[in-house]
């Protein structure tokens, strides 16, 4: 918390202050495990929407011959994607490893909705196993850590 307060003092155009206030708010919501679970899952999903959306826009630019506007928008959305995990109450590598699994599930859903490619049996079984794996990574209770 001390670190966050320090960090609020050095804000540029009020943006950083706002971001860190939001973060304090989020972390204080993590008092109960249930709330923490909901908040972290929502953040993972939001990151997935930004990443796959941004990646898709760039894909449309390069593979489907759309204009440069798509590339520019894609870059902005990917930048936003990079900001979302900074609100997660864990260390960098654990957030990113977990996100890898969320990403798989969301990519399948994305392909289904936007490209009309439904998941097959391999997709479903694989996705379920991946989901179990990343849940252990992020949500397995650790005695020596406050946030988990």
């Amino acid at each position, binding site marked *: 918390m001390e*670190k966050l307060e320090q960090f609020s003092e*050095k804000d*540029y155009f009020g943006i*950083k202050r706002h*971001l860190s206030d939001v973060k304090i708010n989020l972390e204080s919501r993590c008092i109960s495990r249930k709330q923490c679970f909901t908040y972290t899952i929502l953040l993972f999903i939001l990151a997935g929407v930004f990443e*796959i959306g*941004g*990646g*898709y*826009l*760039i*894909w449309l630019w*390069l593979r489907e011959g759309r204009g440069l506007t798509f590339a520019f928008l*894609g*870059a902005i959305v*990917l*930048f936003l*994607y*990079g*900001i979302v*995990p*900074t609100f997660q109450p864990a*260390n*960098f*590598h*654990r957030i*990113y*490893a*977990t*996100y*890898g*699994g969320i*990403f*798989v599930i969301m*990519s*399948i859903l*994305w*392909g*289904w909705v936007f*490209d009309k*490619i439904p998941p*097959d049996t*391999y*997709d479903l*079984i*694989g*996705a*379920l*196993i*991946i*989901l*179990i*794996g*990343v*849940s*252990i*990574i*992020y949500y*397995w209770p*650790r005695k020596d850590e406050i946030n988990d």
Partner: protein
Amino acid sequence: MIDLVISLALFFLAALFEIGGGYLVWLWLRENKGVAFGLLGGLTLAIYGIIPTFQPANFGRVYAAYGGIFIVSSLIWGALVDKKQPDRYEVIGALISLVGVTIMFYLRS
């Protein structure tokens, strides 16, 4: 076979740019480094977006298999760059996830 090698190489390259870009943004907002880190991170993430377009499968499938590589790369990044060794549950979870990835992407074909 050569397709598989190219595919894996592209996955690791993409993961490097994505995790690297995300880490730069992280340094900006969580470790109190300058805004230059954030902008550089944004640029790195944009470059990351270009890499999967070289993959030889459809969009959904490419991104699905990439997730598995990403999980492992994140833990390696943590160990090498952040100097934080993965704990037991991170390793177990990652191994389980890789079984799922193998079923989804490589076992099918």
